[in-house]
C-alpha cells in the first residue's frame, strides 16, 4: 500500500509538472509579449526603451530560463505578478477566488450524490417500469442540456415569473453564512443536476448488476426484507464504482463551476480566469490553470488511494 501510494504520488507530480509545461508553452505561443500587454494599446514608447524594459522584466531571456524562473516563483509561493494589476501576486488573487469555486463544487457534488444515488436505486429496483423510464429521461436530459443553458433559462424565467434575481454582489461564507448559502442554492442545484444525471445512471447500472449476484439472492433467501437487502447488501457494493466515478468527475465539476460562476457573477476561479483571459493577463491565466489542474490531480489521487479503504477486495500491486 505504501509503495503504491508513493508511486502514485510521484506519478501525480509528473502530471502536474507536464501541465505546467503545457500551459507555459501555450501562453507563449500567443502573439505579442507581456510588455505589449502591460502597455496596452495606448502606451507606445520608443523601441530602445522597450528593449530595456523587456530586459528588466526578464522576458528577453530564452524560454527555458523564463520557465524555470516561473517554477521558482511557484515554489516561493507568489506564482509571479499579475501583468495588469501592478504588485498583485498571482497566488494572492487565486487564494481569494478559490474558496468560492471549491464551495460551489463541493456543494454541487453533495447535492448530486443526494439526488443521484436514491434515484438510481429506485430506477434499478423498478427496472423497465414507468418510474425507471422517467428517471432515465431526467438523467439523459441532465447529460444533454449544458448547465449554463439551464442557468440562463432559470435566470430568464425566474426573473420573469418567480421574482428571482441573480445576486449582484457576492456574500462571503464567513461574513454571512446563511445569506451565502441562500445565494449558492440555485447555482449549486444547476451544477449538481448534470452531475446527478451521470451518478444516477452509474448507480442504476451497478445496482442492477449487484441485484443479480449470488450474495443478494442468499440474503433474500435467508428471509431478509427487500429493503434491508437493498440498503445494506446491494448499495454498499454498488456504490464503490459510483464513488470512483464521482471523484474522477473533478475536472468536469470545476469546468461546470467556472461557467456557472461567470453566469451568476460569483468571484471564483472561473470569473478570475475569464477576466484574465479577456485582459490578456497571461501570468494570471497560467497560474490559474496550474492550480485548477493540481486540484484535479489531487482529488483523483485521493479517490484512487481511498478506493482500497472502501473495498477491502482491492489489493495494490
Amino acid at each position, binding site marked *: 500500500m505504501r509503495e503504491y501510494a508513493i508511486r502514485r504520488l510521484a506519478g501525480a507530480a509528473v502530471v502536474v509538472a507536464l501541465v505546467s509545461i503545457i500551459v507555459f508553452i501555450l*501562453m507563449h505561443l500567443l502573439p505579442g509579449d507581456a510588455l505589449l500587454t502591460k502597455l496596452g494599446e495606448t502606451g507606445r514608447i520608443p523601441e530602445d526603451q522597450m528593449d530595456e524594459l523587456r530586459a528588466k522584466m526578464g522576458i528577453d531571456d530564452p524560454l527555458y530560463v523564463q520557465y524555470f524562473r516561473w517554477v521558482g516563483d511557484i515554489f516561493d509561493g507568489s506564482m509571479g505578478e499579475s501583468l495588469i494589476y501592478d504588485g498583485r501576486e498571482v497566488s494572492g488573487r487565486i487564494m481569494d477566488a478559490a474558496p468560492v469555486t471549491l464551495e460551489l463544487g463541493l456543494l454541487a457534488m453533495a447535492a448530486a450524490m443526494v439526488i443521484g444515488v436514491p434515484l438510481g436505486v429506485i430506477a434499478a429496483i423498478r427496472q423497465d417500469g414507468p418510474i425507471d423510464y422517467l428517471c432515465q429521461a431526467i438523467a*439523459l436530459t441532465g447529460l444533454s442540456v449544458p448547465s*449554463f443553458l439551464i442557468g440562463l433559462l432559470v435566470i430568464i424565467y425566474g426573473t*420573469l415569473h418567480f421574482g428571482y434575481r441573480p445576486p449582484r454582489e457576492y456574500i462571503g461564507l464567513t461574513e454571512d453564512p446563511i445569506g451565502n448559502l441562500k445565494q449558492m442554492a440555485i447555482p449549486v442545484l444547476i451544477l449538481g443536476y448534470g452531475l446527478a444525471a451521470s451518478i444516477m*445512471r452509474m448507480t442504476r447500472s451497478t445496482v442492477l448488476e449487484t441485484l443479480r449476484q449470488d450474495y443478494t439472492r442468499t440474503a433474500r433467501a435467508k428471509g431478509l426484507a427487500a429493503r434491508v437487502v437493498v440498503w445494506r447488501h446491494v448499495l454498499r457494493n454498488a456504490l464503490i464504482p459510483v464513488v470512483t466515478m464521482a471523484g474522477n468527475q473533478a475536472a468536469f465539476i470545476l469546468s461546470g463551476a467556472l*461557467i456557472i460562476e461567470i453566469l451568476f457573477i460569483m468571484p471564483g476561479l472561473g470569473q478570475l*480566469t475569464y477576466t484574465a483571459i479577456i485582459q490578456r493577463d497571461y501570468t494570471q491565466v497560467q497560474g490559474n490553470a496550474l492550480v485548477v489542474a493540481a486540484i484535479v*490531480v489531487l482529488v483523483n489521487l485521493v479517490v484512487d488511494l481511498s478506493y482500497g479503504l472502501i473495498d477491502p477486495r482491492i489489493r495494490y500491486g
Partner: protein
Amino acid sequence: MSAIASDLPRVIDTGLRPRNRRLLSLARRKPLAAGAGLVLVVVCVVALFAPVLAPFDPNEVQLGSRLLSPSSEHWLGTDEFGRDVLSRIMHGARVSLAAGLGAAGLGTAAGVVFGLLGGYIGGFVDLAIQRVMDALMALPPIILLMVLATVLSPSLQNVVFAIAIFVMPSASRVVRGAVLAEKEMVYVLAAQSIGASPKRVMVRHVLPNTMAPIIILASIAVGSAIIIEAALGFLGLSVRPPAATWGTMLNTGAQTYMEQAPWLAVAPGLAIGVTVFSINLLGDGLRDILDPRLRGSRG
C-alpha cells in the same frame, strides 16, 4: 437455363433484404434510438441545405423589425438586429454539427493512434503518452479551451482543433485499455508468428477488434463537442460574429434582451438540447447493441 435466369433477380434481392430487415428489427428493438437517429438525420439535412431551406438571410440586418416575437412570418421571432432567428438556427446547425463531428472525429482518431501505439508498444513510449494524456485530462476542459481559444484565433477550424484536443485523451485511454486486452489474444500471437509486421498486426488485427468501444466513445464525443462549442460560443470565444452559431446566439442578444425576448435564448437552447439528447439516445442504443456489458452505464 431459364430457371436460373428467373432466379437471378431473387438472388440479388435477398442480397439486399437482410440489411433492410436488420435496420427494421433494430428500429423495433430500439425504437427510441431509431427515433433519435431520425431527428439527427433531419438536423443534418437542415444543416446541409440551410442556404436553401432558411426563409431569410441569417445575417441580414433589418432594424425596422427588431425583437419581433414569433409570428407566421418569423417562426422563431427576430433578434436585436432584426435578423430571423429560425434562419440563424438553421445556419448555426452547420457550425455545431461541423464542430461536433469534426472535433469528435479528429480527437478520436488522434486518440486511437496514441492509444494503439502506447498499448501495443508498451514500455517508455506507453508511459510517456499516458502521462501527457493525464496532464491534458487534468486541465478542466473549459480552462484548456479558453486558453486554446485565446491562443488560436476564433475560426471554425481552430475551435474544432481545440475541442479535438479535449476529446483525444479519453479516446486514447479507452483504446489503450482495449488494446492491452486484445494483445494477449492468440490471434495476435498467430499473426506475429507468421511474420506480420507490428504495424500490420496493429492496424489489420488489433484495431478492428477494438472498434466497439471506439464507436461508442466517438458517438458520445459528438454530443460533448457540440456542448463545448456552445459553451465557448456562450463565452464569446467561438467562431466570430456575425456568423451564427448556437452558442454565440446565447451569448449576444439572449442575455441583454432576455426579459423582452426570451425566445432568443429558448430557440438556440432547444436546438442544442434536442440535438445532444438525440445523440446521447443514439449512443445508448449503439452501446446496448455493441457492448451489452455496459448496458445503461456511462464509463
